[in-house]
């Protein structure tokens, strides 16, 4: 529904990621003329998964309030709410993947057999987005005043990961710390597949998955326990 109805729906869906992230890419890759191989593609490999996380955070922050009419009228599994936020944003995420294709063409980077990892990358990114949605939805409901701060913190997480520059361009000591950020594994996994043309290292997928599973284990039960209170909070 975000892109409306009618014949232009598909066009708007495809253009949306370029409007949201394309400017970054043009600025950093071409206007600033950053050094390094395929700087724009390297950046796209970070921006694409980050867009799903950021958009899921934005959606989740008000996910319970935006479903107020259902929350106060129906008994249903409240734990579906953050999941549906991530699913809604995943639709836009699929269109965002075309950014990588465009950058590969622009830099003349030929795809290798490693692109077969794409479904795994998409699934891992989606898992991280779903896991993030649960605590964020609760924070947005409990502390609505902090929503702008949450968005800023999410953007800060991008810069506390190798978003603008690849991990290999960062000193060893710093890069060890950056690996603790689940976004680091995601960004580097995309770079491994699309920029370097090889399979992602195990840690690049396992660390984000571990973050997601621990977060889900902690927050899904809490979210379900809080669910029967939501009708009080959204009134």
């Amino acid at each position: 529904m975000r892109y409306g109805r009618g014949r232009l729906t598909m066009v708007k869906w495809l253009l949306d990621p370029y409007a949201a992230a394309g400017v970054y890419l043009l600025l950093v890759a071409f206007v600033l003329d950053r050094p390094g191989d395929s700087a724009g593609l390297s950046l796209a490999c970070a921006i694409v998964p980050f867009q799903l996380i950021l958009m899921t955070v934005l959606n989740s922050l008000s996910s319970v309030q935006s479903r107020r009419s259902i929350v106060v009228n129906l008994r249903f599994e409240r734990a579906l709410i953050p999941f549906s936020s991530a699913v809604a944003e995943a639709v836009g995420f699929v269109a965002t993947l075309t950014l990588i294709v465009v950058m590969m063409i622009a830099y003349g980077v030929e795809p290798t057999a490693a692109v077969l990892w794409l479904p795994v990358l998409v699934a891992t990114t989606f898992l991280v987005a779903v896991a993030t949605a649960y605590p964020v939805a609760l924070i947005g409901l409990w502390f609505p005043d902090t929503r702008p701060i949450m968005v800023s913190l999410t953007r800060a997480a991008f810069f506390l990961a190798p978003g603008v520059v690849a991990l290999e361009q960062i000193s060893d000591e710093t890069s060890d710390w950056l690996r603790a950020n689940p976004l680091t594994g995601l960004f580097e996994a995309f770079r491994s597949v699309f920029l370097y043309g090889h399979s992602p290292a195990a840690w690049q997928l396992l660390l984000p998955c571990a973050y997601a599973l621990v977060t889900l284990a902690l927050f899904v039960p809490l979210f379900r326990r809080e669910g029967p209170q939501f009708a009080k909070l959204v009134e």
Partner: protein
Amino acid sequence: MPLNASIDVRGLGIQFHFDRQRRVLSPTLARIRRGGPAPWALRGIDLSVGPGEGVALVGRTGSGKTTLLRLLGGILAHDEGSLEVRGRVGTLLSPQAGLLGLLTGRENAELLGVLVGMTPRQARAAVEPIRQVSGLGESFELPVSSYSEGMRARLGFAVAAQQDLDLLLLDEVHEAMDHEFRAVVAERAEAVRAGGGIVVAAGHDHAVLATMCDRAVWMDSGGVSHDGDFHAVVDMYVSS
């Protein structure tokens, strides 16, 4: 008559926690954050309803009717006492009727069907009967944001009524309906009761409530003031 529906409430209470800016807190948050007042919206409610009964909740605005309906519908959790509701519950408890404005009537019908436990296939199959019961005609294919409150109530009721119900909970929204559709609501309520189910309806239009209920509970300040024959209790309430 199948004895499949019952409501048994003993010493029921629900508390609302507020912070110092008078915003509502969840109980979890209230434990870790210094708060303001914590009034009881309902306390000491005792209520038993058996198969085939129609119960009207009457009382002033703010007396606890909506909160009690939400507790019965499993939409809110109680903080003290016991609550046992047996049977499949259908609810129409808010003027928005659980509908999302951007979706059409058809899309809302499918979504709500899935949320109340139907499979996607069952929800799709239920759409046509819902369209017919709602009487919305071509408006069924338009976004719900273009609907009047009465049209929303029609669609919300048609979705709720489509389920195989044992308990039907209605909160004032049926009062937004036109006379033609009120007859549909009364007919469905009668069918639920005739099948051994229960109808609990809150509102201020006592003539409408009388078409669905033969018993009334007068709610006052979060408690039950009187409980008995519909006309006797309503007469007491009106003359109070």
